Protein backbone atom coordinates (compact mmCIF):
# COMPACT_ATOMS: atom_id res chain seq x y z
CA UNK A 1 0.00 0.00 0.00
CA UNK A 2 2.63 2.52 1.02
CA UNK A 3 2.06 5.94 2.54
CA UNK A 4 0.13 8.14 0.21
CA UNK A 5 1.50 11.37 1.59
CA UNK A 6 5.30 11.72 1.71
CA UNK A 7 6.56 12.60 5.17
CA UNK A 8 8.26 15.94 4.34
CA UNK A 9 5.00 17.04 2.73
CA UNK A 10 3.06 16.11 5.83
CA UNK A 11 5.41 18.06 8.07
CA UNK A 12 5.23 21.14 5.88
CA UNK A 13 1.46 20.83 5.85
CA UNK A 14 1.28 20.74 9.62
CA UNK A 15 3.48 23.82 9.89
CA UNK A 16 1.27 25.51 7.31
CA UNK A 17 -1.92 24.70 9.17
CA UNK A 18 -0.41 26.09 12.32
CA UNK A 19 0.53 29.33 10.67
CA UNK A 20 -2.86 29.67 9.07
CA UNK A 21 -4.85 28.88 12.18
CA UNK A 22 -3.05 30.26 15.19
CA UNK A 23 -3.97 33.93 14.58
CA UNK A 24 -7.57 32.83 14.08
CA UNK A 25 -7.46 30.83 17.30
CA UNK A 26 -6.12 33.85 19.16
CA UNK A 27 -9.00 36.00 17.98
CA UNK A 28 -11.54 33.32 18.80
CA UNK A 29 -10.18 32.87 22.29
CA UNK A 30 -9.98 36.62 22.87
CA UNK A 31 -13.58 36.90 21.78
CA UNK A 32 -14.61 34.31 24.31
CA UNK A 33 -13.22 36.32 27.18
CA UNK A 34 -15.34 36.78 30.26
CA UNK A 35 -13.64 40.12 30.83
CA UNK A 36 -14.53 43.61 29.59
CA UNK A 37 -11.92 44.28 26.97
CA UNK A 38 -9.99 42.54 24.25
CA UNK A 39 -7.03 40.76 25.74
CA UNK A 40 -5.03 37.61 25.30
CA UNK A 41 -4.96 35.25 27.04
CA UNK A 42 -8.61 35.85 27.86
CA UNK A 43 -9.64 36.48 31.43
CA UNK A 44 -11.86 33.50 31.80
CA UNK A 45 -14.06 32.05 29.10
CA UNK A 46 -17.60 33.06 28.41
CA UNK A 47 -20.06 33.46 25.59
CA UNK A 48 -21.16 36.87 26.81
CA UNK A 49 -19.71 38.77 23.89
CA UNK A 50 -21.09 36.37 21.29
CA UNK A 51 -24.49 36.74 22.95
CA UNK A 52 -24.07 40.51 22.99
CA UNK A 53 -23.30 40.34 19.30
CA UNK A 54 -26.42 38.30 18.63
CA UNK A 55 -28.50 40.74 20.63
CA UNK A 56 -27.05 43.74 18.84
CA UNK A 57 -29.44 45.03 16.18
CA UNK A 58 -26.87 46.71 14.03
CA UNK A 59 -24.30 43.95 14.02
CA UNK A 60 -26.79 41.21 13.33
CA UNK A 61 -28.53 43.11 10.55
CA UNK A 62 -25.13 43.93 9.03
CA UNK A 63 -24.30 40.25 9.19
CA UNK A 64 -27.45 39.19 7.41
CA UNK A 65 -27.13 41.90 4.83
CA UNK A 66 -23.61 40.79 4.00
CA UNK A 67 -24.80 37.20 3.93
CA UNK A 68 -27.64 37.95 1.56
CA UNK A 69 -25.42 40.00 -0.70
CA UNK A 70 -22.73 37.33 -0.72
CA UNK A 71 -25.27 34.68 -1.64
CA UNK A 72 -26.61 36.79 -4.50
CA UNK A 73 -23.07 37.46 -5.66
CA UNK A 74 -22.10 33.82 -5.41
CA UNK A 75 -24.98 32.67 -7.58
CA UNK A 76 -24.39 35.14 -10.37
CA UNK A 77 -20.60 34.87 -10.27
CA UNK A 78 -20.68 31.11 -10.35
CA UNK A 79 -23.00 30.94 -13.33
CA UNK A 80 -21.28 33.64 -15.35
CA UNK A 81 -17.81 32.53 -14.33
CA UNK A 82 -18.28 28.84 -14.99
CA UNK A 83 -19.74 29.55 -18.41
CA UNK A 84 -16.82 31.80 -19.27
CA UNK A 85 -14.29 29.27 -17.99
CA UNK A 86 -15.87 26.57 -20.10
CA UNK A 87 -15.66 28.76 -23.14
CA UNK A 88 -12.05 29.67 -22.47
CA UNK A 89 -10.91 26.11 -21.99
CA UNK A 90 -12.74 24.67 -24.96
CA UNK A 91 -11.87 27.27 -27.53
CA UNK A 92 -8.72 27.97 -29.42
CA UNK A 93 -8.45 31.40 -30.83
CA UNK A 94 -5.82 34.04 -31.03
CA UNK A 95 -6.85 36.36 -28.20
CA UNK A 96 -7.69 33.62 -25.76
CA UNK A 97 -5.02 34.41 -23.21
CA UNK A 98 -5.81 38.07 -23.44
CA UNK A 99 -9.45 37.35 -22.81
CA UNK A 100 -8.59 35.26 -19.81
CA UNK A 101 -6.41 38.03 -18.44
CA UNK A 102 -9.20 40.49 -19.14
CA UNK A 103 -11.66 38.57 -17.02
CA UNK A 104 -9.13 38.28 -14.23
CA UNK A 105 -8.24 41.95 -14.21
CA UNK A 106 -10.69 43.26 -11.58
CA UNK A 107 -8.70 41.45 -8.94
CA UNK A 108 -5.45 43.21 -9.75
CA UNK A 109 -6.98 46.56 -9.06
CA UNK A 110 -7.40 47.71 -5.47
CA UNK A 111 -10.98 47.66 -4.32
CA UNK A 112 -10.96 51.40 -3.87
CA UNK A 113 -10.30 51.90 -7.59
CA UNK A 114 -13.17 49.71 -8.71
CA UNK A 115 -15.45 51.06 -6.04
CA UNK A 116 -14.73 54.64 -6.89
CA UNK A 117 -14.81 54.12 -10.65
CA UNK A 118 -18.24 52.55 -10.40
CA UNK A 119 -19.44 55.22 -7.99
CA UNK A 120 -18.42 58.04 -10.30
CA UNK A 121 -19.86 56.14 -13.25
CA UNK A 122 -23.23 55.68 -11.58
CA UNK A 123 -23.38 59.36 -10.74
CA UNK A 124 -22.39 60.63 -14.14
CA UNK A 125 -24.66 58.32 -16.09
CA UNK A 126 -27.46 58.75 -13.57
CA UNK A 127 -28.85 55.27 -14.24
CA UNK A 128 -30.30 55.03 -10.78
CA UNK A 129 -27.68 52.73 -9.32
CA UNK A 130 -25.99 55.30 -7.13
CA UNK A 131 -25.94 54.11 -3.55
CA UNK A 132 -28.36 51.28 -4.16
CA UNK A 133 -27.96 47.63 -3.30
CA UNK A 134 -27.94 46.77 -7.02
CA UNK A 135 -25.03 49.08 -7.62
CA UNK A 136 -23.19 47.47 -4.74
CA UNK A 137 -24.07 44.02 -6.03
CA UNK A 138 -22.55 44.81 -9.38
CA UNK A 139 -19.30 45.78 -7.74
CA UNK A 140 -19.26 42.55 -5.79
CA UNK A 141 -19.99 40.42 -8.85
CA UNK A 142 -17.16 42.14 -10.68
CA UNK A 143 -14.81 41.34 -7.88
CA UNK A 144 -15.89 37.75 -7.28
CA UNK A 145 -16.23 36.37 -10.80
CA UNK A 146 -12.48 36.22 -11.49
CA UNK A 147 -12.10 33.80 -8.62
CA UNK A 148 -14.66 31.46 -10.11
CA UNK A 149 -13.02 31.64 -13.51
CA UNK A 150 -9.65 30.94 -11.97
CA UNK A 151 -10.65 27.87 -10.01
CA UNK A 152 -13.01 26.39 -12.55
CA UNK A 153 -10.50 27.11 -15.28
CA UNK A 154 -7.80 25.28 -13.36
CA UNK A 155 -10.09 22.32 -12.78
CA UNK A 156 -10.97 22.25 -16.46
CA UNK A 157 -7.32 22.42 -17.46
CA UNK A 158 -6.47 19.28 -15.57
CA UNK A 159 -9.58 17.60 -16.75
CA UNK A 160 -9.18 14.91 -19.29
CA UNK A 161 -11.04 16.16 -22.31
CA UNK A 162 -11.10 12.72 -23.89
CA UNK A 163 -13.82 11.83 -21.43
CA UNK A 164 -16.01 14.44 -23.08
CA UNK A 165 -15.04 13.32 -26.50
CA UNK A 166 -15.89 9.76 -25.63
CA UNK A 167 -19.33 10.81 -24.43
CA UNK A 168 -19.93 12.85 -27.55
CA UNK A 169 -18.88 10.07 -29.84
CA UNK A 170 -21.38 7.89 -28.03
CA UNK A 171 -24.12 10.29 -29.13
CA UNK A 172 -24.59 12.55 -26.12
CA UNK A 173 -25.55 16.16 -26.82
CA UNK A 174 -23.24 18.92 -25.60
CA UNK A 175 -25.56 19.75 -22.72
CA UNK A 176 -25.90 16.13 -21.71
CA UNK A 177 -22.17 15.68 -21.87
CA UNK A 178 -21.72 18.64 -19.62
CA UNK A 179 -24.31 17.50 -17.15
CA UNK A 180 -23.32 13.87 -16.90
CA UNK A 181 -19.62 13.85 -17.60
CA UNK A 182 -17.92 17.24 -17.31
CA UNK A 183 -19.84 18.71 -14.42
CA UNK A 184 -19.41 15.89 -11.90
CA UNK A 185 -15.70 15.89 -12.56
CA UNK A 186 -15.12 19.59 -12.26
CA UNK A 187 -17.68 20.11 -9.51
CA UNK A 188 -14.87 20.36 -6.99
CA UNK A 189 -13.55 23.33 -8.91
CA UNK A 190 -16.97 24.90 -9.23
CA UNK A 191 -17.60 24.36 -5.55
CA UNK A 192 -14.29 25.95 -4.66
CA UNK A 193 -14.96 28.85 -6.98
CA UNK A 194 -18.40 29.56 -5.60
CA UNK A 195 -17.13 29.41 -2.06
CA UNK A 196 -14.46 31.91 -3.03
CA UNK A 197 -17.06 34.16 -4.55
CA UNK A 198 -19.14 33.99 -1.38
CA UNK A 199 -16.33 34.61 1.04
CA UNK A 200 -14.73 37.34 -1.04
CA UNK A 201 -18.03 39.16 -1.26
CA UNK A 202 -18.79 38.65 2.42
CA UNK A 203 -15.48 40.10 3.48
CA UNK A 204 -15.35 42.86 0.89
CA UNK A 205 -14.52 46.21 2.43
CA UNK A 206 -12.98 48.67 0.03
CA UNK A 207 -15.40 48.18 -2.84
CA UNK A 208 -18.28 48.56 -0.41
CA UNK A 209 -16.90 51.85 0.94
CA UNK A 210 -18.02 53.79 -2.07
CA UNK A 211 -20.92 51.74 -3.27
CA UNK A 212 -22.81 51.10 -0.06
CA UNK A 213 -26.45 51.95 0.18
CA UNK A 214 -28.03 53.67 3.15
CA UNK A 215 -29.44 51.52 5.90
CA UNK A 216 -27.56 48.54 4.53
CA UNK A 217 -24.23 48.32 6.25
CA UNK A 218 -22.07 45.38 5.20
CA UNK A 219 -20.49 43.53 8.09
CA UNK A 220 -16.83 44.51 7.51
CA UNK A 221 -17.82 48.17 7.57
CA UNK A 222 -19.95 47.63 10.65
CA UNK A 223 -17.01 45.98 12.34
CA UNK A 224 -14.65 48.75 11.37
CA UNK A 225 -17.12 51.33 12.62
CA UNK A 226 -17.62 49.56 15.90
CA UNK A 227 -13.91 49.39 16.41
CA UNK A 228 -13.69 53.17 16.15
CA UNK A 229 -15.32 54.03 19.41
CA UNK A 230 -15.41 51.15 21.79
CA UNK A 231 -12.62 48.90 22.92
CA UNK A 232 -14.45 45.67 23.51
CA UNK A 233 -14.38 42.14 22.08
CA UNK A 234 -17.54 42.47 20.02
CA UNK A 235 -15.62 42.46 16.74
CA UNK A 236 -13.96 39.22 17.77
CA UNK A 237 -17.35 37.84 18.73
CA UNK A 238 -18.66 38.72 15.29
CA UNK A 239 -15.75 36.78 13.86
CA UNK A 240 -16.61 33.78 16.01
CA UNK A 241 -20.16 33.84 14.80
CA UNK A 242 -19.02 34.06 11.17
CA UNK A 243 -16.78 31.04 11.65
CA UNK A 244 -19.60 29.08 13.28
CA UNK A 245 -21.80 29.93 10.35
CA UNK A 246 -19.21 28.81 7.82
CA UNK A 247 -18.83 25.52 9.66
CA UNK A 248 -22.56 24.97 9.69
CA UNK A 249 -22.80 25.80 5.99
CA UNK A 250 -20.10 23.37 5.02
CA UNK A 251 -21.68 20.60 7.03
CA UNK A 252 -25.01 21.36 5.47
CA UNK A 253 -23.58 21.48 1.96
CA UNK A 254 -21.86 18.19 2.51
CA UNK A 255 -25.13 16.60 3.23
CA UNK A 256 -26.48 17.95 -0.02
CA UNK A 257 -23.49 17.36 -2.23
CA UNK A 258 -22.16 14.25 -0.56
CA UNK A 259 -18.46 14.70 -0.69
CA UNK A 260 -17.93 11.10 0.13
CA UNK A 261 -19.35 10.12 -3.20
CA UNK A 262 -17.01 12.42 -5.02
CA UNK A 263 -14.09 10.97 -3.17
CA UNK A 264 -15.07 7.54 -4.35
CA UNK A 265 -12.95 7.27 -7.44
CA UNK A 266 -11.83 3.77 -7.62
Amino acid at each position, binding site marked *: MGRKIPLPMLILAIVGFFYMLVPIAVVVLAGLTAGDFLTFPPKGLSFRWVIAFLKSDSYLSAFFFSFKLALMTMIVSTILGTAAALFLSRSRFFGRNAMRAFFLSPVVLPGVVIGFALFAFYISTDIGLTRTIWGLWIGHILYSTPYVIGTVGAALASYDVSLDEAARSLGASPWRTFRKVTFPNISQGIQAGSIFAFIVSFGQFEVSLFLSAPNSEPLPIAMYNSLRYK*FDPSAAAAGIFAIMLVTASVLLTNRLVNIGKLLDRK
Partner: protein
Amino acid sequence: MTIRKPTHTRRSVLKRSLALGATAAIPSTFFINHAWAQDTSYDGEVFDAGGATINIGEWGGGWEEFVRKGLVDQFEKDFNCRVNWDSSFPWFPKFVTQGAQNPVYDICNWNLPNLMQTNAAGDYFLSADEVKANVPNAADCWDFAFASGAGVTWAYQPYVYAYRTDRGDPVSNFRDFWASRFANKRGTYGTENGLMHAFFMATAQEFGKDQYDMDAAFQALEEAMPMKISEFTFNMLSMLERGEVDVAVHIEGEALSLKRKGAPVDVWQWDSHPILTQTKTISRYSDPMQKKLAFALMNRTLEPSFLNAFGDEFLWRPTNSKAAITAPLAEEGVENTAAATEAFWVPDWNFFVENKQDITERLNGIFGL
Protein backbone atom coordinates in the same frame (compact mmCIF):
# COMPACT_ATOMS: atom_id res chain seq x y z
CA MET B 1 -17.73 60.79 -15.59
CA THR B 2 -18.53 62.06 -19.03
CA ILE B 3 -16.12 63.43 -21.53
CA ARG B 4 -17.05 66.99 -22.26
CA LYS B 5 -15.71 70.48 -22.43
CA PRO B 6 -16.23 72.42 -19.20
CA THR B 7 -18.81 75.00 -20.31
CA HIS B 8 -21.40 76.64 -18.17
CA THR B 9 -24.34 76.81 -20.57
CA ARG B 10 -24.97 73.11 -20.32
CA ARG B 11 -25.08 73.24 -16.57
CA SER B 12 -27.69 75.90 -16.34
CA VAL B 13 -30.12 73.69 -18.21
CA LEU B 14 -29.80 70.84 -15.76
CA LYS B 15 -32.52 69.96 -13.31
CA ARG B 16 -32.19 68.64 -9.81
CA SER B 17 -30.17 65.57 -10.75
CA LEU B 18 -27.10 67.59 -11.52
CA ALA B 19 -24.82 64.74 -10.73
CA LEU B 20 -22.87 64.68 -13.95
CA GLY B 21 -19.66 64.91 -12.03
CA ALA B 22 -19.94 68.62 -11.50
CA THR B 23 -16.78 70.33 -10.37
CA ALA B 24 -16.81 71.60 -6.86
CA ALA B 25 -17.17 75.35 -7.06
CA ILE B 26 -20.29 76.33 -8.94
CA PRO B 27 -21.58 79.85 -8.62
CA SER B 28 -24.97 79.73 -6.98
CA THR B 29 -26.29 82.52 -9.15
CA PHE B 30 -27.17 79.98 -11.80
CA PHE B 31 -29.92 78.54 -9.66
CA ILE B 32 -31.80 81.54 -8.41
CA ASN B 33 -35.12 80.10 -9.42
CA HIS B 34 -34.71 76.90 -7.52
CA ALA B 35 -36.45 75.98 -4.31
CA TRP B 36 -33.18 75.96 -2.40
CA ALA B 37 -33.03 79.69 -2.58
CA GLN B 38 -36.13 79.88 -0.40
CA ASP B 39 -35.46 80.40 3.22
CA THR B 40 -36.24 77.45 5.38
CA SER B 41 -36.51 78.12 9.03
CA TYR B 42 -37.12 76.05 12.08
CA ASP B 43 -38.38 77.12 15.44
CA GLY B 44 -37.90 74.03 17.54
CA GLU B 45 -41.43 72.66 17.30
CA VAL B 46 -42.38 69.19 16.20
CA PHE B 47 -43.89 69.07 12.70
CA ASP B 48 -45.19 66.45 10.31
CA ALA B 49 -42.79 65.78 7.43
CA GLY B 50 -45.32 63.67 5.54
CA GLY B 51 -43.06 60.64 5.25
CA ALA B 52 -40.12 62.52 3.75
CA THR B 53 -36.70 60.92 3.64
CA ILE B 54 -33.60 62.55 5.03
CA ASN B 55 -30.08 61.36 4.19
CA ILE B 56 -27.53 61.31 6.94
CA GLY B 57 -23.89 60.37 6.99
CA GLU B 58 -22.67 59.17 10.34
CA TRP B 59 -20.58 56.40 11.88
CA GLY B 60 -22.19 52.99 11.94
CA GLY B 61 -21.81 49.88 14.03
CA GLY B 62 -22.28 50.31 17.75
CA TRP B 63 -22.50 54.09 17.38
CA GLU B 64 -25.39 53.82 14.96
CA GLU B 65 -27.16 51.38 17.17
CA PHE B 66 -27.00 53.69 20.16
CA VAL B 67 -27.93 56.84 18.29
CA ARG B 68 -30.85 55.11 16.60
CA LYS B 69 -32.19 53.86 19.89
CA GLY B 70 -31.52 57.06 21.75
CA LEU B 71 -32.48 59.61 19.14
CA VAL B 72 -33.25 58.65 15.57
CA ASP B 73 -36.03 56.10 16.06
CA GLN B 74 -38.01 58.57 18.14
CA PHE B 75 -37.22 61.33 15.69
CA GLU B 76 -38.64 59.29 12.81
CA LYS B 77 -41.84 58.72 14.76
CA ASP B 78 -42.27 62.27 16.02
CA PHE B 79 -41.65 63.95 12.70
CA ASN B 80 -43.14 61.28 10.46
CA CYS B 81 -40.04 60.85 8.34
CA ARG B 82 -37.53 58.23 7.34
CA VAL B 83 -33.83 58.44 8.03
CA ASN B 84 -31.46 56.98 5.43
CA TRP B 85 -28.33 56.21 7.36
CA ASP B 86 -25.09 55.82 5.43
CA SER B 87 -22.13 54.74 7.47
CA SER B 88 -19.40 54.19 4.94
CA PHE B 89 -16.94 56.91 5.65
CA PRO B 90 -15.17 58.80 3.94
CA TRP B 91 -17.70 61.49 3.16
CA PHE B 92 -15.41 63.94 1.39
CA PRO B 93 -15.00 62.12 -1.95
CA LYS B 94 -18.72 61.43 -2.04
CA PHE B 95 -19.58 65.06 -1.47
CA VAL B 96 -17.25 66.31 -4.15
CA THR B 97 -18.24 63.64 -6.66
CA GLN B 98 -21.91 64.46 -6.39
CA GLY B 99 -21.30 68.14 -6.12
CA ALA B 100 -22.65 70.84 -3.84
CA GLN B 101 -25.93 71.19 -5.71
CA ASN B 102 -26.81 67.57 -5.17
CA PRO B 103 -25.67 66.98 -1.62
CA VAL B 104 -25.10 63.34 -0.87
CA TYR B 105 -26.23 63.90 2.72
CA ASP B 106 -28.60 66.47 4.17
CA ILE B 107 -26.92 66.34 7.54
CA CYS B 108 -23.52 64.83 8.09
CA ASN B 109 -21.37 64.02 11.10
CA TRP B 110 -17.66 64.82 10.95
CA ASN B 111 -14.40 65.24 12.71
CA LEU B 112 -13.21 68.75 11.93
CA PRO B 113 -10.28 68.24 9.57
CA ASN B 114 -12.38 66.39 6.96
CA LEU B 115 -15.22 68.84 7.42
CA MET B 116 -12.93 71.77 6.72
CA GLN B 117 -11.46 70.00 3.73
CA THR B 118 -14.91 69.61 2.21
CA ASN B 119 -15.89 73.12 3.15
CA ALA B 120 -12.83 74.47 1.39
CA ALA B 121 -13.72 72.57 -1.76
CA GLY B 122 -17.03 74.30 -2.34
CA ASP B 123 -20.22 75.80 -1.04
CA TYR B 124 -21.50 72.66 0.60
CA PHE B 125 -22.66 73.70 4.02
CA LEU B 126 -24.74 76.29 5.79
CA SER B 127 -22.63 78.56 7.93
CA ALA B 128 -22.57 78.07 11.66
CA ASP B 129 -24.56 81.28 12.08
CA GLU B 130 -27.26 80.11 9.71
CA VAL B 131 -27.53 76.85 11.60
CA LYS B 132 -27.55 78.62 14.93
CA ALA B 133 -30.45 80.80 13.83
CA ASN B 134 -32.57 77.73 13.16
CA VAL B 135 -31.54 75.42 15.97
CA PRO B 136 -32.81 76.72 19.33
CA ASN B 137 -30.64 74.43 21.45
CA ALA B 138 -27.52 75.79 19.78
CA ALA B 139 -27.89 78.96 21.82
CA ASP B 140 -26.88 76.98 24.90
CA CYS B 141 -23.63 75.73 23.38
CA TRP B 142 -20.18 76.99 24.20
CA ASP B 143 -18.55 79.25 21.63
CA PHE B 144 -15.96 76.76 20.50
CA ALA B 145 -18.80 74.62 19.16
CA PHE B 146 -19.00 77.06 16.25
CA ALA B 147 -15.30 77.41 15.61
CA SER B 148 -15.46 75.63 12.27
CA GLY B 149 -17.85 78.22 10.88
CA ALA B 150 -19.60 75.49 8.92
CA GLY B 151 -21.30 73.30 11.45
CA VAL B 152 -22.10 72.78 15.07
CA THR B 153 -20.00 70.61 17.34
CA TRP B 154 -22.14 68.61 19.70
CA ALA B 155 -19.57 66.50 21.51
CA TYR B 156 -15.85 66.55 22.01
CA GLN B 157 -12.96 64.88 23.72
CA PRO B 158 -9.60 66.39 24.61
CA TYR B 159 -6.49 64.87 23.13
CA VAL B 160 -4.35 62.98 25.59
CA TYR B 161 -1.40 60.72 25.82
CA ALA B 162 -2.53 57.29 26.89
CA TYR B 163 0.34 55.60 28.67
CA ARG B 164 1.11 52.48 30.60
CA THR B 165 1.40 53.01 34.30
CA ASP B 166 3.70 50.04 34.79
CA ARG B 167 6.54 51.42 32.67
CA GLY B 168 8.03 54.07 34.86
CA ASP B 169 7.00 57.57 35.86
CA PRO B 170 3.67 58.92 34.70
CA VAL B 171 3.64 61.15 31.66
CA SER B 172 3.22 64.80 32.61
CA ASN B 173 4.55 66.82 29.72
CA PHE B 174 3.91 67.05 25.99
CA ARG B 175 7.60 66.44 25.31
CA ASP B 176 7.60 63.22 27.37
CA PHE B 177 6.54 61.53 24.16
CA TRP B 178 10.08 62.14 22.90
CA ALA B 179 11.73 60.69 26.02
CA SER B 180 14.34 58.09 25.21
CA ARG B 181 12.63 55.51 27.39
CA PHE B 182 9.86 55.45 24.82
CA ALA B 183 12.07 54.74 21.81
CA ASN B 184 10.03 52.65 19.37
CA LYS B 185 7.38 52.36 22.03
CA ARG B 186 5.53 55.50 21.12
CA GLY B 187 2.44 55.38 18.97
CA THR B 188 0.74 57.74 16.59
CA TYR B 189 -1.33 57.49 13.42
CA GLY B 190 -1.08 57.48 9.67
CA THR B 191 -0.99 60.74 7.74
CA GLU B 192 -4.67 60.61 6.86
CA ASN B 193 -5.91 60.15 10.39
CA GLY B 194 -7.43 63.16 12.15
CA LEU B 195 -5.58 62.40 15.38
CA MET B 196 -2.31 62.66 13.51
CA HIS B 197 -3.40 66.00 12.12
CA ALA B 198 -4.06 67.34 15.60
CA PHE B 199 -0.79 65.90 16.88
CA PHE B 200 0.98 67.65 14.04
CA MET B 201 -0.54 71.02 14.87
CA ALA B 202 0.12 70.57 18.57
CA THR B 203 3.73 69.60 17.84
CA ALA B 204 4.17 72.70 15.71
CA GLN B 205 2.81 74.82 18.52
CA GLU B 206 5.02 73.16 21.14
CA PHE B 207 8.31 73.04 19.28
CA GLY B 208 7.91 76.07 17.04
CA LYS B 209 6.73 79.63 17.23
CA ASP B 210 3.07 78.73 16.85
CA GLN B 211 0.75 76.20 15.30
CA TYR B 212 1.77 77.38 11.83
CA ASP B 213 5.42 76.47 12.28
CA MET B 214 5.35 73.37 10.09
CA ASP B 215 9.11 73.04 9.83
CA ALA B 216 9.45 72.76 13.57
CA ALA B 217 6.82 70.05 13.58
CA PHE B 218 8.51 68.06 10.82
CA GLN B 219 11.81 68.32 12.64
CA ALA B 220 10.35 67.15 15.93
CA LEU B 221 8.50 64.25 14.31
CA GLU B 222 11.66 63.12 12.58
CA GLU B 223 13.34 63.03 15.93
CA ALA B 224 10.48 60.99 17.32
CA MET B 225 11.18 58.16 14.90
CA PRO B 226 11.11 55.23 15.28
CA MET B 227 7.42 55.32 16.15
CA LYS B 228 4.70 52.75 15.75
CA ILE B 229 2.08 54.01 13.36
CA SER B 230 -1.45 52.73 13.64
CA GLU B 231 -4.50 53.12 11.46
CA PHE B 232 -7.19 53.68 14.02
CA THR B 233 -7.69 54.18 17.72
CA PHE B 234 -8.93 50.69 18.52
CA ASN B 235 -5.75 49.22 17.11
CA MET B 236 -3.74 51.67 19.16
CA LEU B 237 -5.50 50.67 22.35
CA SER B 238 -4.88 47.01 21.68
CA MET B 239 -1.23 47.83 21.03
CA LEU B 240 -1.12 49.68 24.33
CA GLU B 241 -2.84 46.82 26.11
CA ARG B 242 -0.37 44.33 24.62
CA GLY B 243 2.61 46.45 25.51
CA GLU B 244 3.58 47.11 21.90
CA VAL B 245 3.56 50.80 22.75
CA ASP B 246 3.97 52.44 26.13
CA VAL B 247 2.69 55.89 25.22
CA ALA B 248 0.23 56.82 22.51
CA VAL B 249 -1.59 59.77 21.03
CA HIS B 250 -5.21 59.22 21.95
CA ILE B 251 -8.45 60.74 23.08
CA GLU B 252 -9.65 60.98 26.63
CA GLY B 253 -12.88 59.05 26.81
CA GLU B 254 -11.81 56.04 24.82
CA ALA B 255 -8.50 55.64 26.63
CA LEU B 256 -10.15 56.17 30.00
CA SER B 257 -12.62 53.41 29.23
CA LEU B 258 -9.68 51.04 29.00
CA LYS B 259 -8.41 52.26 32.34
CA ARG B 260 -11.81 51.75 33.89
CA LYS B 261 -11.86 48.18 32.65
CA GLY B 262 -8.80 47.43 34.66
CA ALA B 263 -5.86 47.78 32.30
CA PRO B 264 -2.71 49.47 33.66
CA VAL B 265 -3.29 52.59 31.61
CA ASP B 266 -3.73 56.26 32.43
CA VAL B 267 -4.14 59.47 30.47
CA TRP B 268 -2.54 62.91 30.43
CA GLN B 269 -4.30 65.77 28.68
CA TRP B 270 -2.10 67.87 26.41
CA ASP B 271 -1.46 71.29 27.87
CA SER B 272 -2.36 72.93 24.59
CA HIS B 273 -5.82 71.36 25.01
CA PRO B 274 -6.85 70.61 21.45
CA ILE B 275 -10.07 68.70 21.07
CA LEU B 276 -11.43 66.01 18.81
CA THR B 277 -14.93 66.96 17.81
CA GLN B 278 -18.13 65.46 16.56
CA THR B 279 -19.55 68.16 14.35
CA LYS B 280 -22.68 68.11 12.26
CA THR B 281 -23.11 70.05 9.06
CA ILE B 282 -26.28 70.83 7.19
CA SER B 283 -26.07 70.96 3.43
CA ARG B 284 -26.87 74.26 1.85
CA TYR B 285 -28.59 72.91 -1.23
CA SER B 286 -30.78 70.29 0.36
CA ASP B 287 -34.46 70.52 -0.40
CA PRO B 288 -36.51 72.63 2.04
CA MET B 289 -38.23 69.73 3.81
CA GLN B 290 -34.94 67.90 4.22
CA LYS B 291 -33.30 71.05 5.48
CA LYS B 292 -36.05 71.59 8.03
CA LEU B 293 -35.72 67.99 9.17
CA ALA B 294 -31.97 68.47 9.41
CA PHE B 295 -32.47 71.47 11.68
CA ALA B 296 -34.85 69.44 13.78
CA LEU B 297 -32.44 66.53 14.03
CA MET B 298 -29.63 68.91 14.93
CA ASN B 299 -31.83 70.36 17.63
CA ARG B 300 -32.62 66.96 19.05
CA THR B 301 -28.92 66.04 18.98
CA LEU B 302 -28.14 69.05 21.13
CA GLU B 303 -30.82 68.14 23.64
CA PRO B 304 -29.20 67.67 27.09
CA SER B 305 -31.04 64.39 27.65
CA PHE B 306 -29.49 62.84 24.57
CA LEU B 307 -26.05 64.29 25.24
CA ASN B 308 -26.10 62.93 28.77
CA ALA B 309 -27.01 59.43 27.61
CA PHE B 310 -24.42 59.59 24.86
CA GLY B 311 -21.76 60.71 27.30
CA ASP B 312 -22.60 57.83 29.62
CA GLU B 313 -22.22 55.35 26.80
CA PHE B 314 -19.15 56.59 24.95
CA LEU B 315 -17.55 59.03 27.42
CA TRP B 316 -17.74 62.09 25.19
CA ARG B 317 -18.18 65.58 26.64
CA PRO B 318 -21.18 67.71 25.57
CA THR B 319 -20.91 71.19 24.13
CA ASN B 320 -24.28 72.16 25.50
CA SER B 321 -23.76 74.11 28.70
CA LYS B 322 -26.96 72.65 30.10
CA ALA B 323 -25.85 69.03 29.68
CA ALA B 324 -24.06 67.05 32.36
CA ILE B 325 -20.67 65.40 32.40
CA THR B 326 -20.95 61.64 32.73
CA ALA B 327 -20.02 60.17 36.10
CA PRO B 328 -16.80 58.38 35.08
CA LEU B 329 -15.42 61.64 33.74
CA ALA B 330 -16.82 63.75 36.56
CA GLU B 331 -14.96 61.51 38.99
CA GLU B 332 -11.75 62.51 37.24
CA GLY B 333 -12.60 66.15 37.79
CA VAL B 334 -14.09 67.01 34.42
CA GLU B 335 -16.56 69.91 34.46
CA ASN B 336 -18.89 71.52 31.96
CA THR B 337 -18.47 75.17 32.92
CA ALA B 338 -17.34 78.27 31.08
CA ALA B 339 -14.09 78.30 33.00
CA ALA B 340 -13.39 74.64 32.32
CA THR B 341 -14.08 74.92 28.61
CA GLU B 342 -12.22 78.17 28.09
CA ALA B 343 -8.88 76.49 27.61
CA PHE B 344 -9.92 74.34 24.70
CA TRP B 345 -8.20 75.03 21.46
CA VAL B 346 -9.50 74.27 18.00
CA PRO B 347 -6.48 74.22 15.67
CA ASP B 348 -6.65 76.28 12.51
CA TRP B 349 -7.92 73.57 10.22
CA ASN B 350 -8.19 75.89 7.26
CA PHE B 351 -4.46 76.33 7.36
CA PHE B 352 -3.99 72.60 7.65
CA VAL B 353 -6.27 71.84 4.73
CA GLU B 354 -4.49 74.36 2.53
CA ASN B 355 -1.18 72.66 3.19
CA LYS B 356 -2.49 69.15 3.45
CA GLN B 357 -0.83 67.73 0.37
CA ASP B 358 2.61 68.96 1.39
CA ILE B 359 2.14 67.86 4.96
CA THR B 360 1.00 64.42 3.87
CA GLU B 361 3.93 63.94 1.55
CA ARG B 362 6.51 65.05 4.05
CA LEU B 363 5.02 62.97 6.81
CA ASN B 364 4.93 59.98 4.50
CA GLY B 365 8.60 60.60 3.91
CA ILE B 366 9.35 60.82 7.62
CA PHE B 367 7.48 57.63 8.37
CA GLY B 368 9.17 55.89 5.50
CA LEU B 369 6.13 55.31 3.37
